[in-house]
């Protein structure tokens, strides 16, 4: 696989993983700045190790043991469920029904909570380590899921997905380390919307392939499927804007 092909194949995984890395980095930054860096870095490293084991065992087992058509059905199902969840939330955010994800607000809350818990300097900071471990592990599981899903088609796809996720991790962590501030400028809802539409498109495509459907032009159908999702989402945002009074905002739990 040449570099250009690899870059194209790695892009979906890169964008999807970047969103998750931004969320994890916000929490780790909050812990590091309020309570010192040793414990959160140790927690993050431990979580990364846990994730490597999960991807190494589950990913390899999935690709090598499960028959191909069953794997496509399984991965297609998971991708569709995962993608629709993101797509729905992003559309609701665009329509103003759900508040936009605010990294700055999350960061401030996390810092306030961590400061309230205090820290005895002589002890190892278990709270900081556990908070960082949990954040990196939970967001990382989503990254692992994304890598397994995009890479399920074979070794080449798996390599591209891993490269995309690692590149996203390096860029997000480097930016956060340089800025020492959450990456609030990242257009998170647009990214989540794009990724949700992309994952849902891959989900439909692979499930279809798994049950023996024929897609004209094979993978060339994916942009068509993606286009259909984008049109449907645009229609849904217009529909929702028409339904709600101007300026109405409702919390996520209410819908």
């Amino acid at each position, binding site marked *: 696989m040449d570099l250009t092909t690899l870059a194209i194949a790695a892009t979906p995984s890169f964008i999807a993983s970047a969103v998750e890395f931004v969320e994890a980095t916000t929490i780790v930054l909050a812990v590091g700045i309020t309570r010192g860096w040793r414990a959160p870095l140790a927690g993050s490293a431990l979580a990364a190790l846990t994730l490597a084991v999960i991807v190494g065992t589950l990913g390899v087992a999935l690709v090598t043991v499960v028959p191909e058509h069953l794997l496509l*059905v399984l991965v*297609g*199902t*998971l991708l*569709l*469920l*995962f993608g*629709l*969840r993101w*797509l*729905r*939330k992003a*559309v*609701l955010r665009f*329509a103003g*029904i759900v508040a936009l994800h605010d990294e700055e607000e999350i960061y401030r809350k996390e810092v306030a909570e961590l400061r309230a818990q205090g820290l005895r300097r002589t002890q190892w900071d278990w709270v900081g380590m556990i908070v960082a471990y949990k954040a990196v592990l*939970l967001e990382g*599981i*989503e990254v692992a*899921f994304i890598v397994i899903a995009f890479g399920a088609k074979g070794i080449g796809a798996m390599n591209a997905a891993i490269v995309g996720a690692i590149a996203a991790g390096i860029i997000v962590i480097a930016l956060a380390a340089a800025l020492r501030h959450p990456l609030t400028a990242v257009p998170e809802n647009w990214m989540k919307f794009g990724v949700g539409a992309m994952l*849902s498109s891959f989900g*439909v*495509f692979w*499930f*279809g*392939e798994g*049950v*023996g*459907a*024929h*897609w004209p032009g094979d993978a060339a*159908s994916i942009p068509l*499927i993606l286009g*259909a*999702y984008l049109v*449907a*989402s645009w*229609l*849904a945002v217009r*529909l*929702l804007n028409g*339904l*709600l*009074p101007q300026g*109405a905002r*409702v919390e996520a739990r*209410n*819908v």
Partner: protein
Amino acid sequence: MFSVLRAIWDNTYGLLVDDGQLAVGAIAALAITWLIAASSSEALRENAGWVLLVLVLALVIANLYRAGHNARRRTG
């Protein structure tokens, strides 16, 4: 131990399901597609993917419409 397993389950479930009705609807659409592909003619089986796409798009729009209605009811 139970609480750890419970947390893992909750997180895995949360990873895939945000709205129960949407998830159930998506699984129903997948099941219908599988049935069409398994029990129909060659022509229908070959087009099962498009059937799935139409079902899922209809599901997404219907689900969001319901969410909008619920939101409107709550905002009065």
